């Protein structure tokens, strides 16, 4: 019977099953305590953003001149700012802005970069060459100037800040994605797809894109953190989201400058919020990188 070519009965069934979600999660946490910590921060932040109204009873924009710059106490856990607004509630609502800007801009930017990068690698040749030149231009272009110009053109406000942050993300994402897509393009399964006469779109979307997810996820998470930081910097330069919208960078603009010493909580807490969030995303992305990189596995 050993000679029968295809006798299903003899195939040993002891082969790896797809690991469960929970199992994967557990493995990730065990292998990357730092990454798990980062992930925890990220999740906490999302929870904060979603359930903001439940977590605080203060209106983040309501002025209260009776309680200007009051230090942290039982009433205002993190104190108030110069308008007497509750800092905790502004930080909690600020998570919304941060996540909105962070997620939307990095998702939009990374996805556009993904499509461009993969297409460029797939088509290669002249298209790739031209594309690379364009990417070079954008890469070399000072990021903050690009953002500055976009905000100057479209004006301030959340949407425009998102646009401003998204544009520089595209070439960065595209470049990284392209690098791995070039390797994927040489994979036999892409050749097999081509040999099957599948359309370019199908090969790009169905066969290549899902396989550059690892680098994609990594820059995605890193970019979320980066976007939050850029948003803060833009606010600091007076170009970002505007008062009275609760946003972390903006809180540092008015606050950190004048009250950093006499009312340090105004500067400390939003700064910590940004740092912690960016820290969380980076830590998570970093560990994801280690985890997804087959070479890193011991």
């Amino acid at each position, binding site marked *: 019977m050993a000679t029968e070519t295809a006798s299903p009965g003899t195939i040993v069934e002891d082969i790896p099953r797809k690991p469960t979600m929970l199992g994967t999660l557990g493995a990730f946490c065990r292998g990357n305590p730092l990454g798990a910590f980062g992930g925890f921060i990220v999740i906490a932040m999302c929870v904060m953003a979603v359930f903001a109204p439940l977590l605080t009873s203060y209106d983040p*924009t*309501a*002025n209260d*001149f009776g309680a*200007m710059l009051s230090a942290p106490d039982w009433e205002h856990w993190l104190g108030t700012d*110069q*308008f007497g607004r509750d800092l905790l509630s502004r930080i909690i609502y600020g998570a919304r802005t941060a996540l909105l800007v962070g997620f939307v801009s990095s998702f939009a930017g990374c996805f556009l970069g993904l499509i461009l990068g993969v297409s460029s690698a797939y088509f290669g040749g002249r298209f790739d060459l031209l594309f690379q030149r364009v990417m070079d231009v954008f890469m070399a272009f000072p990021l903050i100037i690009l953002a500055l110009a976009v905000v*100057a053109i479209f*004006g*301030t*406000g959340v949407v425009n800040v998102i646009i401003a942050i998204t544009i520089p993300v595209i070439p960065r994402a595209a470049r990284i994605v392209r690098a791995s897509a070039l390797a994927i393009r040489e994979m036999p399964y892409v050749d097999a797809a081509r040999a099957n006469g599948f359309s370019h779109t199908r090969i790009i979307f169905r066969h290549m894109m899902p396989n550059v997810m690892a680098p994609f996820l990594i820059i995605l998470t890193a970019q979320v953190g980066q976007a939050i930081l850029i948003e803060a910097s833009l606010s600091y330069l*007076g*170009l970002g989201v*505007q*008062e*009275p*919208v609760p946003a972390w960078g903006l809180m540092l*603009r*008015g606050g*950190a*400058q*004048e*009250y*950093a*010493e*006499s009312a340090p909580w105004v500067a400390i807490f939003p700064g910590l919020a940004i740092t912690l969030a960016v820290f969380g995303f980076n830590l998570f992305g970093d560990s994801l990188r280690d985890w997804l990189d087959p070479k890193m596995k011991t």
Partner: protein
Amino acid sequence: DAQTPKRGGVLKFVVPDEPPSFDGHRETTFALIHPIAPFYSVLIRPNPQDPDNPAKFECDVCTEMPSPADGGKTFTFKIRKDIKFHDGSPLTSADVLATFQRIIFPKEGISSARQAQLSMVESVTAPDADTVVFKLKHPSGAFIPALAAPFHFIYSKAKLDADPRWYEQNIMGSGPFVFDVREAGARITGKRYDGYHHKGQPYLDGFEAIFAKTQTLRVQAIRGDQAAAEFRGLPPKSRDDLVAALGKDITVQESDWNCLLITSPNHERKPFDDARVRRALTLAVDRWGGAEALSKIAIVKTVGGIVFPNHPLAATKEELQQMAGYWPDIKKSRAEARRLLKEAGQENLKFTLANRAVDQPYTIVGTWLIDQWKQIGVEVTQKAEATGPFYAQLRSGNFDVALDFNCQSVVNPLSDTSKFLGVAAGDQYGRYKSQKLEDLHAKMNQIADVGEQRKIMRQFEKIVLDEEAHNSISLWWYRIIPHRSYMKGWKISSSHYINNQLDVVWIDK
């Protein structure tokens, strides 16, 4: 100060911005005055020891303040004979003439920023070497204050003849200090001019104007003694911090400031074409309560009308409280505001406030206003932008409501209030036209009697702020100058443009 001034020392001070050129006739920014004014003399100026007194202009290069002749239409200035430019050439009436010709009647290719303020001048002549005569088209109370503007540096005719634009890139005046170096973006320094015509002055060996964009940094520079002062004005909290940190080493001078923020609804855009809506917006604002709170966090303080608060032409508190938006009872005001909105069918009004992206005091006041409007159910978002795009927006009329501002040097209400005239004046962005206002303004400008002027001014103010609510005024600015106590002889004024020649300033270390 009873003390006798000491000589010596270099005064370091910080300036928030760098001037684009050195030409005072052409530029309008205080950033030019702070580092450049010490190099030049002017014809007349506010008294450095009492800069806010409207009656106390004093001569710089002239011998004495002239009395008006010809029914207030002719002013004859005698020029001092002992004045030399820094290059050694004598300063004569020809130089003064050339200077004011350039300012009032600029030749093709020359930019003059304050031509309009001196539009009442018909001619300037110099009959002899030490006489300059100004002839006006009509008598005007605005003339002398306009003439005393700190930008009217006296240039050398010889230099102007050789190159009318020479002064844009070069400095050569007859002021207390001689130009030393300019480091692009970093600093401008001057050395004492020994041949200065006010004898014994200046007291300083020199000065160093350091450009520093960030406000916190300027405060800290004073604290760390990298600079003795900043002459624009710092927020109250910074003052308190400096006082707390430095105690007697810091001296604070404060004054009302001839600057105001103006809420300008765009009359060409619905629903702001409706006076009821505009009135509702001004009624919602609690100026009396806000003044107290904002003065702790922003460089604004005094509640006022369209005239600089301490000026004789300004409204008194009682007069103010008659006007919409200034009523003592804010509840009543807001109730009225809601009623008006309802009447106009704008209960759910939402709009965008166009503002300058400058913290002090623009965005802070903007943020406060937004909260005030929220109290009558109006939802406002702020769009704060860099000055360039901000102006572009105002000029194109592509905005709902703007937070415009008016900042003048020498207090001169007759001229300053032209800001509230119709579109013709060019810098009134509310886009309304009112013949009535124009007539009132013209009338007010052509009579000499202060009592009459005041009456017309009240009518004018009532129309602008209350009846039509073309504009509304938030709070007047408040200038706080904390400086190192060793800097002496400098007196605060109502404008960051004036009193910055530094000839009377000295250091006591």
